[in-house]
């Protein structure tokens, strides 16, 4: 039987209370939301928090709302909620793509977007999604609220800008006209971590050329989005040669490590292939959007 090390448990009543509890119990306290990363780590004794502060009751963090050109998603929004949202699928099909291949329904019913981002596993899908959508994270702490961009949010594997006495309250996604996005993942079996995955977001100009674009990669040792993609694609018409060139750049940009999910060459090959695919699909979706 896998049993965690001893710990104490408390339910937070609201965000301020959660912050106060973090402050009170100090560096060995952890927030628990869906718990699908933290609890297994505790059972395997990879994590030994002394306090768990349960934020599952904080309804104020469970919301999705559009405000002008910003779509706000509360940190406690479950994967299933994102997966089943028609509005998310319309505005950010990359989220729907990704959610379909995150773990299995049981995990998705419980796991949250905030938990995924804050866990910051290098093979985590939503981090890439947020990168390419240029999302912003809202972080609340004793000193109030701050908003950070994704490149500032990520600090490396399992590390983020969220301080020990802070919590992520929401993610904000800019809504751009004539834009769309896509995500693709290769996994060894259904529900597994990615061998490699890629996400892309594009905006088209009125004439059908690419205005803005970004590509991110999962599980292959790339922080943030692939540099140079925006410059390469900007002002050009989407076509296969262009996607191929982007694929080559992405493959060169990543630094995968060999493991039983695949060797370095294979993962680079996937970075290339998946980059082409997601750009192809994002551009096709964006132009449908344009026509529609």
């Amino acid at each position, binding site marked *: 039987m*896998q049993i965690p090390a001893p710990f104490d448990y408390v339910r937070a009543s609201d965000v301020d209370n959660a912050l106060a509890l973090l402050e009170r119990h100090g560096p060995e306290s952890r927030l628990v939301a869906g718990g699908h990363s933290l609890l297994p780590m505790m059972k395997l004794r990879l994590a030994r928090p002394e306090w768990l502060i349960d934020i599952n009751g904080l309804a104020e963090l469970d919301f999705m709302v559009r405000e002008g050109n910003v779509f706000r998603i509360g940190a406690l929004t479950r994967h299933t909620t994102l997966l089943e949202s028609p509005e998310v699928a319309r505005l950010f099909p990359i989220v729907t793509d990704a959610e379909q291949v995150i773990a299995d329904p049981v995990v998705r019913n419980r796991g949250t977007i905030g938990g995924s981002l804050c866990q910051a596993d290098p093979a985590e899908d939503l981090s890439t999604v947020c990168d390419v959508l240029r999302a912003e994270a809202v972080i609340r702490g004793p000193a109030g609220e701050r908003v950070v961009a994704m490149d500032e949010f990520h600090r490396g594997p399992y590390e983020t800008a969220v301080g020990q006495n802070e919590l992520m309250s929401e993610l904000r996604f800019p809504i751009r006209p004539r834009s769309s996005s896509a995500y693709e993942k290769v996994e060894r079996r259904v529900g597994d971590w990615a061998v490699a995955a890629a996400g892309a977001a594009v905006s088209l100009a009125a004439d059908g050329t690419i205005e803005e674009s970004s590509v991110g990669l999962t599980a292959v040792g790339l922080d943030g989005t692939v540099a140079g993609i925006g410059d390469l694609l900007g002002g050009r018409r989407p076509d296969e040669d262009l996607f191929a060139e982007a694929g080559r750049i992405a493959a060169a940009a990543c630094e995968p490590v060999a493991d039983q999910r695949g060797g370095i060459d294979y993962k680079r090959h996937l970075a290339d292939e998946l980059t082409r695919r997601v750009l192809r699909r994002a551009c096709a979706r964006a132009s449908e959007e344009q026509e529609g």
Partner: protein
Amino acid sequence: MRVQQPAATGLDLERVDGRAKVLGLAPYAYEHPAENPTYLYPVQSTIARGRITAIDTAAAETMDGVVAVLTHLNAPRLADAADKELAVLQSDEVGFRGQFVAAVVADSPEAAREAAARVRVQYHQEPHHAALRADHEDLYKPEQINAGLETDTQAGDPDAALASAAVVVDRTYTTPAEHNNPMEPHTTVAQWEGDRLLVFDSTQAVHNARKTLAPLFDVEVEQIRVVAPHVGGGFGSKGLPHAHVVLTALAAKVTGGRPVKYALTRQQMFFLAGYRTPTIQRLQLGASPDGRISVLTHDVVEQTSAIKEFAEQTAGISRMMYSADHRRTTHRLASLDVPVPSWMRAPGECPGSFGLEVAMDELAEACGIDPIELRVRNEPAIDPETGKPFASRHLLACLREGARRFGWERRNAQPGTVLVDGWRTGIGVAASTYPARRQPANTARIRFTADGFYEVQIGAVDLGTGAWTALTQIAAEALECGPEQVRLQIGDTDLPVATVAGGSSGTASWGSAIIGAAQMFRKEHGGFPSAGDTSEGDGERNPAGKNYALHSFGAQFAEVQVHADTGEIRVSRMLGVYSAGRIINPRTARSQFLGGMTMGIGMALHEQSVMDERFGMIVNHDFADYHVPSNADIRQLEAFWLEEVDEHAGPLGARGIGEIGIVGAAAAVANAAYNATGIRVRDLPLTADKFLT
């Protein structure tokens, strides 16, 4: 021999234990009520080979709730320490990483685990070898291999025949180490009352378990009771008691009579509960241009643990499967500082069929003939190994029936020609076989109760396969009563002696004893018995074994899709047709076949225990990294069987179905992948990167 006419057997009866299981009322080993229990958590070695030089248990011993901390310095002595896998805490020697070196017994599982983490062990480390290589310098020839088979066989002059053969396939195939991973972890609850030991164990054989334990603890078998009414799978890994059973019983000696409960964690199971050895198999097939095999050699290199020998009979299948005048099979072992390998679903036939059946596919291609036709041309008239006739050999019927159902005629003989939406698609076939074993030494007892039921008792075990149901049906048929009139009792050494739920032998072996008891009962008490009337009967050794070769056969068909750009591989369709004698219960039988095929897909695509030889460490020792198929990975699966009764398989006419479903399954997938892509992968598992060249 008179074969019983089917009545209750053949009925599609629901599992008689199904309701209790669904309601959570069927007790597994850990769930039996235990009064004032203690809990065990072990300390495992962190080196692969060497000696313990010091153990500091002070911090653990002073923790609240700790009852005892056992090490080799203070653990009770076993009467027999010859089996080094089972001789736990008897010496300072370390034979593999993950071996038990200490154990904490405490009032709660939490305290036991926490205290175990505080035990400090120092070692004198010695150089170790933990990786299997074909050129390992100290390969040795074991005395015999598993199931008591000969290590090597030879007929004719294989080398000369190979030199003169018109067509030769000479290839090496490898299968990785694989772990059984049943759903229910290995679990033991042990309690001593004076010199009597009560054990609730997750085991495939209650009687064998106590027979193994008795000499270790210097007691008579009658002083030990092992109970296992329900078991959550084993796939062979619970066929023999492993170290945890001994450790738990040993720990129960120091608790003042309190029971000790211990369930292995999933991670511990990767070191302490057996696994399938990796294999390196060289196959040489020499044939005439029309595909008639003149020579077949199968030379196997595999591993065992230095502390205990287990020699998988990997090439055994090549001794009886196809005709060849010249033949050689050999097994050589590397003795390594690794955990002890053991039985895993179809030991021998399972890995051996990967080498043999992929080689057959390669030969078919080299000769330019259809893989099914190749097997037709090499169908032996008698068992090539023993010279005996086969009691029942319907391999060709399985192949033909499978081909018809699967749509084999649509196969494109030219590989790599079907590409739809980026997916290359192909189909492949492999043959399957498993010996029909029936164990003697089974006794059943039948008693008529005051309320009009037949109590049928036998110390058999249902490891999740359906024995509760099948044995109920067999008893009903033999007693000529309805299944609802039978009260079966199994899974307890207080019941008459029975052999292991393994080797696909359970139903036939136990069933024969039940039929024997039923016949005796009717002889002694007639058709209108009185309350308390009791008879016993034994399963006798199958006399047909003297004159016949007894095997089941099957044909595995797979359709595989491989993505042209990413190499992703899926088994989109799989179909098996089996010839296994009489099928007792179609529902549980189909489940067994499909389960075997599913495990075969796992073997083909996913399963691989990765050894970090620097540390002797199996690194992917959990389900996050040791991949088995999820439900969503299994697409269309179908299992069929030939309607038959094997008159040489004993009074039941059944041969056993637990293992044949996995045999050949991985080869069928690999052959289909070749047909899809033109890329021949000879090393399992078939990961995506291998299809991008």
